[in-house]
C-alpha cells in the first residue's frame, strides 16, 4: 500500500511538469510579420521586453525555409521561449500572398495553443516598417494592429474576419476572402487602412479595393457594421452640396435564372441623412431628389464593384455558396471560371428613413 502510494505520487509529479510553461520563461509574441516566399521567408516577431518599470517592444528578424523554420531560427536569438499563445495579429506582405496564403497559416492551425481569433492583414510593400512603427505608437505591437483593424471593421471598411473564418473560407471554392489591406503613410509615419485585398482562391489577385469600394462591397455582402457612411455630392442650381448618409439597414434578394445564368440582385437600403447643409430636407421634392441621387450613385457603385470582382475572379460575396445550396445543378466545381460568366444585375432602392434630429 505504502509503495503503491509513492508510485502514484511519483507518476503524478512526473506528469505535471511536462506541460508546465512558466509565464516568466516565455517571450509573449503579440505580432508576427511574414515576408518573402517559400524557401526564403523572413519573419518578424514583436514581443514586449519588460524591465523594472518600462515596457519596450522588441522586434526580432529571422530568415528560414518555411514559417516554422523561421520561428525555430528566431528561438535561437532570444533568451526565453518564443510563445505565440497571445498573438493578436499577423501581417503579411503583398508579395508573399501571391503564393497560396495557407502556406503561411498552416503552423497556426496545428498548434492548439495558438489563438485562432486573431486578425490577418496584408501590407503594401515590406512588412518591416509596419512592425517598426509600433515601437512609437503603442504599448503592445499586436494590440495596436488588432485595435487598428477592429476600428476599421466598425467603420465598415474591413470585413469581420479572423484566422478561423479565413481558414475555413480558404478551402471553400464557392467563396473568396477579402483581407484588410494596410498601406504606409510616409509623411506621418503611420499605418493607414487602404481598403481590402481581393483574393481568388488561395492567392492575392493584386487588386485592392479602396476604402469606399470596400464599403460598397460590404453593403453588397449585407455586412453593414456600426457605422457605414456614404458621401455624395448633390447638384442644385450649379451648386454642389455634400450629402452624407449612414446605412441603417440593408435588405437583399437574389433571384437566380439558371438558363440565362443571370442573377437579379435586389437591394433595399435604408439610410439616415447625417450631413446636409442645405437643410429643408422635410420638403418632399428635396427629399425625393436627394433620395434618387443617392440611389443612382449607389447603383453605379454597386455595378462598378461587381465588375471588378468578376474581373478578378474573386467571389467575396459568396454567390457560389448561394448557388450551391439553392441551385445545385448550376454549380460547377471550377466555380471561379463560372463566376466570371455570370451576368449580375444589381438593382438598388434607397429609402431615407431618418433625417437626423434637425427638422
Amino acid at each position, binding site marked *: 500500500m505504502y509503495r503503491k502510494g509513492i508510485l502514484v505520487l511519483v507518476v503524478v509529479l512526473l506528469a505535471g511538469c511536462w506541460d508546465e510553461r512558466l509565464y516568466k520563461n516565455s517571450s509573449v509574441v503579440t505580432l508576427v510579420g511574414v515576408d518573402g516566399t517559400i524557401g526564403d521567408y523572413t519573419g518578424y516577431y514583436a514581443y514586449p521586453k*519588460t524591465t523594472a518599470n518600462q515596457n519596450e517592444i522588441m522586434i526580432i528578424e529571422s530568415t528560414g525555409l518555411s514559417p516554422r523554420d523561421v520561428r525555430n531560427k528566431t528561438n535561437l536569438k532570444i533568451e526565453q521561449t518564443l510563445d505565440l499563445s497571445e498573438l493578436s495579429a499577423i501581417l503579411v506582405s503583398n508579395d508573399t500572398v501571391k503564393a497560396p496564403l495557407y502556406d503561411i497559416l498552416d503552423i497556426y492551425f496545428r498548434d492548439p*495553443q495558438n489563438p485562432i481569433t486573431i486578425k490577418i492583414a496584408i501590407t503594401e510593400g515590406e512588412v518591416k516598417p509596419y512592425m517598426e512603427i509600433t515601437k512609437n505608437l503603442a*504599448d503592445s505591437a499586436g494590440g495596436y494592429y488588432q485595435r487598428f483593424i477592429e476600428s476599421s471593421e466598425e467603420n465598415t471598411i474591413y470585413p469581420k474576419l479572423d484566422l478561423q473564418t479565413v481558414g475555413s473560407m480558404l478551402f471553400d471554392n464557392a467563396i473568396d476572402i477579402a483581407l484588410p489591406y494596410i498601406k504606409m503613410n510616409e509623411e506621418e509615419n503611420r499605418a493607414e487602412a487602404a481598403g481590402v485585398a481581393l483574393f481568388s482562391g488561395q492567392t492575392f489577385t493584386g487588386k485592392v479595393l479602396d476604402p469606399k469600394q470596400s464599403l460598397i462591397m460590404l453593403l453588397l455582402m449585407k455586412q453593414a457594421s456600426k457605422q457605414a457612411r456614404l458621401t455624395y455630392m448633390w447638384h442644385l442650381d450649379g451648386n454642389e452640396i455634400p450629402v452624407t448618409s449612414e446605412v441603417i439597414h440593408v435588405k437583399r434578394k437574389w433571384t437566380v435564372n439558371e438558363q440565362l445564368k443571370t442573377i437579379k440582385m435586389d437591394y433595399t437600403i435604408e439610410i439616415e441623412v447625417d450631413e446636409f447643409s442645405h437643410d429643408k430636407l422635410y420638403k418632399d421634392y428635396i427629399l425625393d431628389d436627394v433620395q434618387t441621387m443617392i440611389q443612382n450613385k449607389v447603383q453605379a457603385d454597386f455595378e462598378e464593384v461587381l465588375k471588378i470582382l468578376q474581373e478578378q475572379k474573386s467571389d467575396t460575396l459568396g454567390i457560389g455558396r448561394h448557388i450551391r445550396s439553392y441551385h445545385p445543378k448550376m454549380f460547377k466545381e471550377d466555380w471561379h471560371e463560372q463566376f466570371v460568366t455570370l451576368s449580375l444585375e444589381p438593382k438598388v432602392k434607397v429609402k431615407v428613413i431618418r433625417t437626423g434630429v434637425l427638422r
Partner: protein
Amino acid sequence: MDKVELMMKSMQKAFYHSSDFTIRQIDWRNRSSAILCFYASLVDAKEVQKILDTIYARLDTDKPFWSETLVSTIEHFSLPQAVERICKGETLIVLPDTGEMLSLTILNKVNRNPDEPNNEHILRGSHEGLIENLDTNLALLRKRINNPALVVKSFRLGKETNTRAYYLYMDGVIKPETLQELEKRLHAINIDYFYSIGQLNDVLEDSVLSPFPQVLNTERPDRVVANLVEGKVVVMTDTTPTALIAPVTFFSYYQSPDDYNARVLVGSFYRMVRLLSFISAVFLPAFYIAVISFHFEILPLELSNQVKGDVNQIPYRPLIEALILEIIMELIRESSIRLPQSVGQTIGIVGGLVIGDAIVSAGLVSNLMVIVVALTAISSYVVPSMELNTTIRLLRFPFMVLASLFGFFGIVIGVVILLIHLINLSSLKQPYFAPIIPFQPKEAYKVFIRSPYIKPTVQVTSFNPPKDDRVKNGDTP
C-alpha cells in the same frame, strides 16, 4: 466518643481533609446535635443562613413537612449520596438521631453576563450570548420558545467528571430517526474526563477526518432557536458556552441571523455574496497559479505586460511564492488571536502594511500575488462560522498544489473530488449537501435567497419537512 463526633470524623476522611470543606456541629431541637457540612467555595453562605433561619422557625411548630422548601429537601442518610450532593455544591445538615439528612441547594455560582459572543458578531437583532452555565443557557432558550414542545433531556458526560449535559429538540418537528441516531451516539460515549466541547463534537460527527465540520457550533441563543424550529437537535453541556447543532447542511454555515434581521433583498444579496466568497476563498490562489504557470494566454493583452513585469522578477515558482505569502498570512492571523487585544492591532499594522509593502519591494513575491492572497483572506473571513472558515483556509492548499501540477485540469480534478466528498458526507445520517443533492427544488432556492416571511404556513427547514400538516402549519401541540 459519641455518634456525632464519629460521623464527623468519617465525613472528613471522605473529603480527604480538604481545606475548603467545612464541617461543624450545630444544635438541633430537643438538645440533640446535627452536623452542618458544605464546600465553602461552592456555597452562598448568606442565602443558606436565611433558609436555615426559616427552617429553624418551622421546626419549632412541629409541622409535618417542615423541611420542604423550593431549595431544600430531606432524605435518608447514606455516605456516598452525601458525598455526591456536597460535591455538587449543596449544603448538608445530617441528623444522626433520625438517620436523615437535610440538603439545601443554594449554589454560589460564578457566572459572567450573557454578553454577545466575540466570534459571532451581528449588526441587528439580539445581542445575547450563551454562557458557561447550563441553567442560564436553558433559560435563554426557554425565554425564546414558550412552548412545552421544546423538549429537554439530560444526560451525564464523563465517568469521573460527571458533567451535566442536555440535548434539546422540538417535538413534532424533529425526525424520529435523527433523534434515535443522536441517542445512540450519546449512549456510546465512553470518556472518563470531560473538559472540552471538542470531545463531544468528535463523537457526534459522522466522519471525523473530513475537512468539513458536520456539527454546527454556536454561542448565539437566537441561532440555536432558529435551528431548533427547523428540526435539529441541540446539545449543550455545563461549563461551555457552545451549543452543538446537528444535523446540519453545508449551507447552514453560510446563514447568519443577520440575513433574517435584514430586509429580504439585502439579506438575499449578502447571502449570495457569502456563497461566492467560498469560491474565491478556495479557488483564487489556485486559479492564479494555474494562469501564471500554464494558461497565460487567457490574460488580456493590456494586463499581460504588467503581469509579466511583475512575475519576471520572482526567483521561484508561483506555488512557492503563494505558499510563502499564505503562510505569512496564517502567521499573522494566529499571532493576532493569541496576543492581547491592545497589541493585536499593532500586529495588524506590522503584518498588513509593513510586510505587505516591503515583501513586494524586496522582490520576494509579486504585486498580484499580494492582491490574490489578501482577497482570499478577506473572502475566507466572510463565513459566519469559525469552523468552516478554518476548513476553507485549509482546502485551498491542496488546490494550489493541484493547480501548480496540472493547471486548470488539476483544479477540475480537485473540484470533482471535493464534490464527491461533499455529496457522500452526512451529518447525523442526513445528507450534508442537501437541498442541492438530493435536489429539493422548493428548498434549493432558499440556499441563495432569504425568502420573506409572508408565507407562514411553509416552514424553514433544511431537510424534508414533516408530512403532518398540523406540524407544517406551526400549531404543534
